């Protein structure tokens, strides 16, 4: 729905921070059913011109549906700060001048006090998004955020500080008995004894930071702005999920009706210089963004930096990668203390108070913070002197926690994403068992893929086809929406349990092929959106560092054209897109029922034939 609405309603070349951009908050057909389907999505045109799409956990999506609202579309711009109040179908725009400037957790507390309802669900932005800081997401439930491609920034441009929702209606599946049966089948996929997903036991106890030690072992931790990839295992152990759980976690926390033990955690630092600092959601990204990238093995300082990002409403990857870029520039003499307001900006983070102050300056766009608030892509254009070689971004958005040269499908997925780096558009294919599915199972599911080859992480063959399948099936997951941790049993290859849930919930008797086609339609709509904004094959590239530097210690090759281009060709070919331009062809678009999209592209003189 987001992709369709965005393509139809936000016309080509719309000013992303102007009144005509539209911010969508969407639920899906399974949202609010008591089986852990509590996600919702946000989308708009990103300030960089791409699609900005993301999703949230928490409780907001189900509450929105209980209020009788499936979709919220926000157009225009207020002349003073406002918030949106939704209750059982009634929608009011209310004054938010008293909330403007508050940190996210202050906003949360203020609105709960004001509305005198502890169960009200909120989404809000922090000062960073108010100040239109690059890549700011939208926040909720204190530590959840979504839409890191700039959805918060767009919300800030509309002077919309928050959305509050309360509903009292029930949600019932169309076919109740059928739904119970479908749910039993779905639950088998989550059973520790029968699940084929290697993450099932791990996620449910530790959440994603458990990856850190494994990443160190695999050469997946980007160190010192990815100049090196072998961060000390001992350092990785200090910042690992295991250590975090043992020392700092005060409470486990789950999203709406999740059938798993809680994968999110709340934490508190109980002694030392940061005594009393509270936060939550230490995830796989934080140990990279505020750990290995800037070579900081002080877990408490990582918790403080990531907690402050949540409070200011900043994106942790924007900050982590932009800091590490700036540190590399400083150490190479491209930035000096004269540029950094006197800060000795070096890897290893000796001046912790200086970095904490820098974070505030970024959110408030003050002093040196003004440069870093732009993100590393724009900042490197201003600094020049070759500093763009150290900028780790794709389509203007900073990378995430996953390395690329060690896993070729990841490299391809990050490069081609219509949002910019976003591993949530597919499934990270950590080494999987090549016999995860038999050839017969694959054939029954209509999947033409050599799984053994596809799962060889550093063999370029089959990566385009694998990525295409993962993106399509993930598109289906996000449209339901379902938490991806609940769906990884066969890495999204077998979507039949979710198809059965969909049919029982909605009463729509869709064929399995049509169900899967929704994911392919989504992918093609997003691609059509960005080609309309002039993104082409030239933009589907890894960052310069990844394309030009080997990783000798682990034997990973640089992603030079001779390695990368065949994968890209395979991906375009499998999608039915033009090999030279990446523009979807009319034949494919019409197959997907998107004739109007082909016509629209053609009307803009884009070659779809």
């Amino acid at each position: 729905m987001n992709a369709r609405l965005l393509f139809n309603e936000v016309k080509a070349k719309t000013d992303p921070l102007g009144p005509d951009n539209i911010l969508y908050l969407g639920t899906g057909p399974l949202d609010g059913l008591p089986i852990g389907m509590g996600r919702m999505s946000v989308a708009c045109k990103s300030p960089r011109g791409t699609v900005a799409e993301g999703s949230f956990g928490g409780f907001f999506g189900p509450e929105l549906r209980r209020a009788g609202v499936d979709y919220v579309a926000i157009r225009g711009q207020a002349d003073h700060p406002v918030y949106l109040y939704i209750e059982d179908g009634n929608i009011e725009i209310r004054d938010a001048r008293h909330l403007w400037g508050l940190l996210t957790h202050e906003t949360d507390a203020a609105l709960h006090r004001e509305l005198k309802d502890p169960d009200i669900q909120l989404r809000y932005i922090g000062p960073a998004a108010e100040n239109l800081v690059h890549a700011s997401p939208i926040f909720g439930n204190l530590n959840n955020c979504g839409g890191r491609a700039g959805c918060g920034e767009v919300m800030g441009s509309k002077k919309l500080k928050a959305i509050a929702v309360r509903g009292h209606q029930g949600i019932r599946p169309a076919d109740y008995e059928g739904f119970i049966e479908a749910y039993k089948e779905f639950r088998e996929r989550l059973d520790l004894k029968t699940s084929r997903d290697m993450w099932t036991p791990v996620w449910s106890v530790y959440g994603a930071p458990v990856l850190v030690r494994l990443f160190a072992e695999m050469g997946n931790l980007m160190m010192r702005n990815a100049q090196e990839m072998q961060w000390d295992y001992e350092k990785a152990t200090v910042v690992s999920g295991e250590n975090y759980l043992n020392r700092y976690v005060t409470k486990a926390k789950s999203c709406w009706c999740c059938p798993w033990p809680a994968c999110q955690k709340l934490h508190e630092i109980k002694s030392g210089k940061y005594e009393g600092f509270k936060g939550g959601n230490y995830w796989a990204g934080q140990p990279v963004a505020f750990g290995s990238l800037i070579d900081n093995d002080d877990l408490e300082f990582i918790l403080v930096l990531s907690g402050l990002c949540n409070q200011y409403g900043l994106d942790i990857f924007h900050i982590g990668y932009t800091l590490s870029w700036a540190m590399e520039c400083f150490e190479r003499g491209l930035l000096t203390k004269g540029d950094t307001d006197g800060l000795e900006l070096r890897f290893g983070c000796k001046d912790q108070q200086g970095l904490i102050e820098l974070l505030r300056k970024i959110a408030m766009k003050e002093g040196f913070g003004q440069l870093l608030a732009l993100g590393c892509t724009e900042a490197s254009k201003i600094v020049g002197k070759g500093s763009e070689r150290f900028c780790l971004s794709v389509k203007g958005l900073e990378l995430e926690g996953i390395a690329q040269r060690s896993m070729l499908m990841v490299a391809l997925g990050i490069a081609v994403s219509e949002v910019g780096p976003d591993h949530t558009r597919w499934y990270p294919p950590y080494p999987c068992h090549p016999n995860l599915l038999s050839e017969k199972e694959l054939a029954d599911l209509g999947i033409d893929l050599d799984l053994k080859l596809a799962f060889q992480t550093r063999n370029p063959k089959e990566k385009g086809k694998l990525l295409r399948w993962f993106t399509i099936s993930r598109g289906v997951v996000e449209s339901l929406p379902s938490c991806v941790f609940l769906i990884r049993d066969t890495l999204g290859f077998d979507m039949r349990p979710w198809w059965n849930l969909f049919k029982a919930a909605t009463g729509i008797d869709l064929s399995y092929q049509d169900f899967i086609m929704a994911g392919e339609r989504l992918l093609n709509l997003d691609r059509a959106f960005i080609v309309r904004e002039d993104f082409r094959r030239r933009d589907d590239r890894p960052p310069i560092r990844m394309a030009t530097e080997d990783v000798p210690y682990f034997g990973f090759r640089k992603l030079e054209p001779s390695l990368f281009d065949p994968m890209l060709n395979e991906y375009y070919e499998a999608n039915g897109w033009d090999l030279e331009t990446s523009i979807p062809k009319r034949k494919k678009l019409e197959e997907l029922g998107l004739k109007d999209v082909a016509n629209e592209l053609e009307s803009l003189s884009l070659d779809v034939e």
Partner: protein
Amino acid sequence: MMKELHLRYAGPVVPITGILEEYCKTEATTLRDLLAELDGKYGGFDEIFVNRKTRQLNFNAMIYYGEPGKVPVAVIDLDQPVEDHAKITFW
């Protein structure tokens, strides 16, 4: 022949072992032998990794095997030989 191994335990294995890593001496020749030996020390260890029906590596478990000076790789075959000074991560 006695071998010395560097064993690392991650994620759901940690509550069973109670430690994050250890060095151990063993006469195990394959990973399968090693798992059986570790099961004697840490009850339930074998069940995490070895599928009762197929006797192959469970789909929802992972072992990384690294020989000295080489990049660790994910294990598929439990009958893979274990070399002296190998570094093995159980996940």
